[in-house]
């Protein structure tokens, strides 16, 4: 163990792990727990990343690891408390987690069990151990990522979804993760696993919200397997407080002819790092990644994406857009690997940013590593101010400057928002964006 200033949070976590292990009795021998222990050892070796780490160059976790958090703190959340979050009313499966703990009294599952098997991670450990042994921690790499290692070591709650082969699940599923930071600093580490079997289809959204003004830390890992001919829509919506820290990894594994659509929308959040990693381990796959981030104040939003083309004839397409205000900072790091076997790959990446203030900063870094010779790849990033000419055009027709700015920014954001196919979710986001623009 090295003597870095980040030892406080780290040593507390290591001690927590060992304490809980002592209370486990026989369960500590389980396969799942062996993975946890391995992940913990890995976390111990890695430690929290510093800005010297290439992947963390612009995202400094120093202030996060200085905080003291209560993990999985109890919360007396009520329906009235939830009402103030003004969440969209969704006709589908809704699962609530507060400070990492499942809230059955707030949740509802409407899809029939033969269409969609949905359970909490703790239930799945008991009821479907074979499924977990087969998929759990097989995709999200914890060897190089300290936060994924940490999440894996402490993985105890989250959602496991299994869509059986040849099943189209009509009703969307939304997982609502709420940090109740009204009383104290709170932390949670949700761990999700979605398996979409052959020729099945499902829509899942993850939403992250905060109640209260204390600090919160969410370290989430989601593993997704999209089997042959399966289709998945995946949305990650973040609307957290300025005191929220969020580190998340979504690891996607795609097989032949599968389609994966995703949109990651960050409306608010003090300190956010999203990793979206997609392994295209099949031919004729499609992966679509859209992102929108909208930081203001001193918010920091970092999106790292990785697309790994392993097999021939697949297509990936990526569009991330940002609007940055005040003293906010943004990071976009988009990596595309095209391996030697992945001939006839099409890979597109684009990142467009509007920076509204001289004090805001956007760092963009596209990375293409291509080892096949017959591929089509392109990438481009733009960072600039709002189009002055367009602004004048709208004003010259009678639209006041602030309205004209809102109109242009909304149009800019709408490009990504319209990709969200769960209507109530999209409409709610549109309202929130309008409200943030009008501020």
């Amino acid at each position: 163990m090295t003597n870095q200033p980040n030892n406080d949070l780290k040593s507390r976590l290591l001690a927590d792990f060992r304490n809980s292990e002592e209370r486990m009795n026989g369960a500590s021998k389980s396969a799942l727990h062996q993975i946890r222990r391995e992940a913990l050892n890995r976390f111990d070796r890695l430690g929290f990343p510093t800005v010297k780490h290439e992947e963390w160059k612009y995202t400094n976790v120093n202030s996060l690891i200085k905080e003291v958090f209560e993990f999985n703190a109890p919360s007396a959340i009520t329906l009235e408390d939830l009402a103030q979050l003004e969440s969209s009313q969704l006709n589908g499966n809704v699962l609530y987690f507060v400070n990492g703990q499942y809230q059955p009294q707030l949740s509802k599952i409407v899809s029939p069990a033969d269409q969609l098997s949905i359970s909490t991670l703790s239930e799945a450990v008991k009821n479907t151990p074979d499924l977990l042994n087969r998929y759990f921690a097989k995709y999200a790499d914890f060897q190089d990522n300290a936060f994924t290692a940490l999440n894996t070591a402490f993985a105890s709650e989250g959602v496991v979804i299994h869509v059986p082969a040849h099943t189209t699940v009509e009703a969307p599923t939304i997982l609502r993760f709420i940090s109740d930071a009204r009383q104290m600093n709170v932390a949670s580490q949700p761990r999700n696993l979605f398996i979409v079997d052959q020729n099945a289809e499902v829509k899942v959204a993850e939403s992250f919200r905060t109640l209260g003004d204390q600090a919160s830390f969410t370290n989430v890992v989601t593993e997704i397997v999209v089997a042959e001919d399966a289709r998945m829509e995946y949305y990650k919506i973040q609307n957290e407080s300025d005191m929220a820290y969020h580190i998340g990894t979504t690891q996607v594994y795609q097989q032949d002819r599968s389609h994966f659509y995703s949109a990651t929308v960050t409306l608010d959040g003090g300190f956010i790092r999203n990793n979206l990693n997609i392994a295209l381990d099949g031919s004729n796959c499609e992966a679509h990644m859209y992102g929108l981030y909208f930081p203001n104040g001193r918010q920091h939003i970092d999106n790292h994406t990785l697309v790994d083309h392993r097999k021939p004839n697949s297509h990936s397409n990526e569009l991330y857009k940002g609007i940055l205000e005040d003293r906010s900072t943004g990071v976009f790091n988009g990596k595309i690997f095209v391996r030697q076997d992945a001939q006839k790959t099409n890979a597109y990446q684009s990142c467009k940013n509007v920076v509204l203030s001289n004090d805001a900063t956007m760092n963009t870094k596209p990375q293409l590593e291509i080892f096949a010779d017959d591929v089509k790849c392109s990438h481009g990033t733009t960072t600039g101010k709002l189009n002055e000419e367009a602004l004048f055009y709208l004003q010259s027709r009678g639209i006041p400057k602030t309205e004209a700015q809102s109109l242009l920014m909304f149009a800019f954001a709408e490009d990504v928002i319209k990709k969200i196919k769960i209507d109530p979710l999209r409409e709610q986001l549109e309202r929130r964006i309008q409200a943030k623009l009008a501020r």
Partner: protein
Amino acid sequence: MLTISNLQASIGSKEILKGINLEVKPGEVHAIMGPNGSGKSTLASVLAGREDYDVTGGSVLFEGKDLLEMAPENRAAEGIFLAFQYPVEIPGVSTTNFLKTAMNEIRKYRGLDPLDAVQFLKLMKEKMKLVNIDQSLLSRSLNEGFSGGEKKRNEIFQMAMLEPKLAILDETDSGLDIDALRIVAEGVNQLRSPERATIVVTHYQRLLDYIVPDYVHVLYKGRIVKSGPKELAFELEEKGYDWIKAEVETV
């Protein structure tokens, strides 16, 4: 209606307008002609309120109000319309949507109630016929992927919708074939009335075959160096601008 007195404007340190005087009365059509770089488009832009230009002297009164003090949106609300030489492409904003916002902002400025969807659509249908523009074009992103002719027709369509008191057409003929030119000109002519005035900025005389002006002014090196009746335009077409340049240089 419009009184321009000794108007001077520059961009950066470059002086472009060096003292423009012009009086436009209701019902009149004024053509501003001149060689490239004489300041025609600058004049149009300064009147509409483009911020790139610094007004360094002179005044502009519109119906007795100081136009230069007003933000571009207020000039529009007072009744000024600029048809752009290069209409801007705005992805994600449809003509219909933006025009409804514009109309209702203008109505708000004038103390009128907003138009509801039905009233707006009815008006739109009526004005679409005027410039022979298609509904599908108006539902698309503003000017995005439009041909040159479609962009200019869209400008005139917007003008028809907003019914300005003073329309300023900045090189509306540039990039148009003869059929598009005729459609655009007809649109403008149908909006002519004793209460409204038009300033047509153009390099060539051909637009003036269709939009017949009451007065023609020649702008050269930032000043109006010659004014006359519509026949002046024919003379320019025939003889070019060199004789005017020569006249100015000898003075």
